[in-house]
């Protein structure tokens, strides 16, 4: 076999093996890589940051277990940001199978903050600082209904409390009192938020999605329908970076730890493409 033939026909098992190596090794020995935030993530961060005291933000955790690795770090980063800056936050899921993941993310971040809290004021208190609305099917009902009244749609929260008796909800009645909704999803849910909640009630919508679906969402970001956009693991890492750089929030940064894996995987793919093309080039010259 000639050299160029070898370069052009590397066995796929070799490619898989090398990729497995470069993806898993950095995950076994994790270290945080600094990233430079790009404007779609910066815009989202700023929008969350600008939430005033009389408003709250909504975090829609509608991501399935399959894409948890990519999207959960976004949920955690946004929650850390919101809690650190004492923004009021409402969390919900549009599908029942995603409730468990939303609970996981909230519990983790609340635990992080409360384990360091010295006073009652410092602590995160359910109902005062955050509310978990749970799930209300079908998705279109909360999307439209919360424009009129949140507590009419979620009469009780996930834990069975009367929503309108919660301290935080006294001032948070409908989208008018919401600064931005951050939709975390791998499906077309964020577009539905624009179609129903934004078109009708002017709600600002920010998005966190998988890298694969990112290309689908750019048209909406470009027109300003999405205030900001976090795409894939890299987007999550950028948000983590902004939260730590601006507010010094400490905590495990899963997405930033995965950046090394991501970098090596990209470089490996680029290398394979280059090798393939060298082979192709030699082959063409031979002809």
């Amino acid at each position: 076999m000639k050299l160029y033939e070898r370069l052009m026909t590397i066995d796929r098992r070799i490619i898989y093996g090398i990729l497995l190596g470069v993806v898993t090794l950095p995950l076994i020995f994790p270290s945080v890589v600094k990233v430079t935030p790009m404007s779609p993530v910066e815009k989202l961060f700023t929008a969350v940051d600008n939430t005033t005291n009389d408003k709250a933000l909504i975090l829609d955790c509608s991501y399935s277990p399959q894409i948890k690795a990519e999207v959960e770090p976004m949920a955690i980063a946004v929650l850390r940001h919101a809690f650190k800056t004492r923004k009021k936050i409402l969390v919900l899921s549009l599908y029942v199978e995603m409730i468990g993941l939303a609970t996981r993310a909230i519990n983790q971040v609340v635990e992080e903050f409360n384990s360091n809290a010295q006073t009652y004021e410092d602590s995160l208190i359910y109902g005062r600082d955050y509310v978990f609305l749970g799930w209300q099917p079908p998705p279109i009902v909360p999307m439209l209904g919360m424009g009129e009244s949140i507590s009419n749609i979620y009469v009780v929260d996930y834990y069975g409390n009367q929503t309108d008796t919660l301290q935080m909800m006294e001032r948070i009645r409908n989208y008018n009192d919401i600064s931005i909704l951050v939709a975390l999803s791998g499906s077309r849910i964020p577009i539905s938020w624009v179609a129903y909640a934004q078109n009708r009630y002017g709600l600002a919508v920010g998005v966190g999605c998988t890298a694969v679906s990112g290309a689908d969402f750019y048209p909406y970001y470009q027109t300003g329908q999405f205030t900001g956009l976090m795409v894939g693991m890299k987007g999550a890492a950028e948000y983590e970076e902004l939260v730590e750089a601006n507010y010094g929030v400490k905590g495990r940064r899963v997405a930033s730890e995965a950046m090394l894996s991501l970098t090596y995987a990209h470089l490996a793919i680029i290398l394979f493409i280059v090798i393939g093309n060298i082979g192709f080039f030699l082959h063409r010259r031979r002809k």
Partner: protein
Amino acid sequence: MKKTIPLTLIFIAGLLGVISFVIPHPSYQVYDEWIRNDLLRVLSAFAVVLALGSLLRVHFDKIKRKRKNWQFSWLLLIAFGGSAVVGLFGGVAADGVLPTAVGSFQFDIQTLYENIVIPLASSMFALLAFFMASAAYRAFRVRSMEATLLLVAAFIVMVGVLPMGYSISKHLPGFVQWILNVPNVAGQRGIVFGIALGVVATSLKIILGIERAWLGGGE
């Protein structure tokens, strides 16, 4: 006759669909709801029975004829029967007539889903990383001018989104955003316009009975 009835049905159903878009009055919307929700649901229930019948028939047949890898068909049949029994009699939240836990060992349908289906599906999803690498290696060759352009754009985006992108050039990440925001969006919009019009034309052709390949073709 075999063609006339379905074509008439589809014409009527299509027309009713268009009318429901024009008439918001409840006296008409009630029928529309009924067609879209109730009737369609009943039809799909029948289809589910047919589909499951097909699944079982294929695998029983495979076992009977001892076709290649027929042993795995047993696995499917056992999993099928097991989850059907647990799901039908165990209830969604372990509230059925069938007990779905032995001591601390739970096997209700939600637990089965979370601990079997989700990990398996995630593993399949994770295969994408490997497949992307091998597909990119094979496909990205500088065969022509267009292929070279595609390759260059892909390179810029791949390097630009990396954490090291910024250290190569501070303009690189911005340029990547531009590629995603302008040429990418422009191309997508073009395709979307075509798709939207294609949907209109195809629907019209089906309603008018011009497109009948789905009936087995012919004039």
